[in-house]
């Protein structure tokens, strides 16, 4: 479903290269964990997948369902089924959360040629998803992410993912800012979305999340490249010995 080939990407403004020849393949139905030390380029990879214009791809390609998505803008990628749960979801004052959800869901439906969702149906879906994530509906009356706690923001990201039903889910450190109970609730929400048609890229700094979202493959990122791949045993090994061994080995 996702094939990243020799990807090179740099900060558009400064030209600093961050992704330096990254290869990664994730099949439909697969949950791939990306681990790596701080600053190894995990978030940058997630942004490049979503099409953030602050980064420029200078070489290589990203194939999604066999097609390059490099020429697509973020909205087109999202409509095609790519979803990024942000490490730091943005607060957007003045945009009501419900209104945002309605516009986002219906934009994607329109782009795919589906009929728009009517308000009562939308409300029902939102209530259901919010219930699963044990979120207070009152929160959704506020402007988007404004005044949400760190944990509430992460839940709101997963809420959006549940409502938008993407095919490729990229989760960037969704575990950070969550206490253990919240982590379980969020992991249940993510696990409910696991399906043979859907692929997930789960970025995390710690092994903890992977106890709840059990990955099929684990990839270690260092200085903008995948330096080691394995199964979930690799995550445990990293937990025990730290990144130094793996990263050092590759360097």
């Amino acid at each position, binding site marked *: 479903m996702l094939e990243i080939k020799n990807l090179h990407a740099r900060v558009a403004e400064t030209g600093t290269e961050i992704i330096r020849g990254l290869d990664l393949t994730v099949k439909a139905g697969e949950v791939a964990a990306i681990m790596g030390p701080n600053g190894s380029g995990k978030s940058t990879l997630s942004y490049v997948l979503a099409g*953030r214009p602050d980064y420029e791809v200078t070489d290589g390609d990203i194939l999604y369902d066999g097609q390059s998505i490099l020429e697509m803008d973020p909205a087109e990628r999202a409509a095609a089924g790519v979803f990024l749960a942000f490490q730091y979801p943005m607060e957007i004052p003045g945009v009501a959360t419900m209104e945002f959800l309605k516009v986002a869901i219906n934009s994607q439906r329109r782009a795919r040629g589906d009929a728009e969702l009517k308000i009562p149906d939308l409300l029902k879906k939102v209530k259901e998803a919010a219930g699963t994530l044990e979120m207070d509906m009152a929160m959704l009356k506020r402007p988007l992410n404004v005044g949400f706690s760190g944990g509430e923001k992460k839940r709101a990201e997963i809420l959006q993912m549940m409502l938008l039903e993407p095919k490729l889910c990229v989760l960037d450190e969704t575990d950070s800012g969550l206490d253990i109970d919240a982590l379980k609730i969020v992991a249940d929400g993510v696990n409910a979305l696991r399906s043979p048609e859907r692929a997930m890229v789960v970025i995390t700094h710690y092994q903890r999340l992977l106890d709840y979202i059990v990955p099929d493959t684990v990839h270690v990122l260092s200085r903008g490249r995948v330096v080691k791949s394995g199964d979930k045993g690799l995550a445990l090994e990293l937990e025990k010995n730290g990144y130094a061994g793996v990263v050092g080995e590759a360097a």
Partner: protein
Amino acid sequence: MNVHATPQMTAAEQALIDTYGQLFSDLPGDTAVVVRRDEAVEALKSGLPTRRVEAWHYTDLRRLLSTVPAFDPLARAKEQPALLSGATVLPVLSGTVTSMPQIEGVAIRRIFDRLSDGSLAAQLFDGDAADAIGAINTAFVGDGYALDIAEGAEIAKPIELQNLHEGGQTHVRFATHAGRNSRATIVERQTGTGEALVSAISHITVEDGAELTWIILQEQPDDATFLGQTNIEIGADAKFTLFFMNAGGKLVRQEVTVNVAGEGSEFILRGVNLLAGGTHCDVTMVLDHAAANTVSTEVIRNVVTDQAKGVFQGQIRVAREAQKTDAKMACNTLLLTDEGEFSAKPELEIFADDVACGHGATVTEIDQGHLFYLMARGIDEKTARGLLVRAFLAEVIEDLENEAMVEALEEKLTAWFATHG
């Protein structure tokens, strides 16, 4: 009348003076009014204000008002549906009042009649050289409405004053007197089609204990000049809310003069300027706090795209006896293009020693991170930008606290953004 060109006169100045020469015998007015009209034309002969006149520093009227279209006696604009359903519409169509609806608690007269009997003369041009709008309007004003809201009257339905044109020139007035403890909401619509010169002046008196909300919606076409002036006098323990939205016009100047004259009263100004194309839009406010224990807040939000230019001059003067004045003014601009421009000039002149006054002005662009976040959820760029523009303005519009009004204005905003975003 001396209608010969002096060599320095611009085409527009010449046209105004010639037009007066042709029309003055048909204009309504007793002797007192005619005297004022003549004085106004004399003032025009000495030239429209340039940037050397301080009040016009950012809007060189002499240069910007390059041509003046002729009056079109055949034009007859059509009444528009009201902004809010259920409102009582008072239409001025191509400069003339065409119907006189009855409103309980409001005595309505035509400005035509109040010019004819001279009772409006005191509100006309009084020789202030910087008052070009007053001079142009005084020279030509023919009609409009004078509303007298009875003491204690609560007017449930909004009253909508429509000044509509189909090109040419229209010069109107809306004089409003809100009696003690009365309540009313008035909408002023300024729109039309075709090249035009429109002037509109309102003198509004808010008596003690009255609460009046006044909403100006200005949507002139791209080739029209709009010169507006709203003069407000607020009594004791009274409240006046002025909301305006400028969403059109080639050259727009809107003057707001407020005298907070009675103790314990409040003035609220909320304004939205949506500026696109080659628009030049200037909002100039002079606010006097003349009595103790008064409050005012002014918030102006501007969205500027294309090569549009905007100006806000806000002057607050607090008199020595106006102790405990609380006045806050903010002007925030969202620039959507590099070519757009907005100049804000806030000014405080404070003679009292126990006051809380402040002002601030900001200029920002669309936050690229916010834009990316919205697009990453599948919202196309234009829609996402529209959401962010609306977010920028939401606070100001929601301050109206009238759901139907908020919705109607948001619709206007959406329509504007669909064409100009």
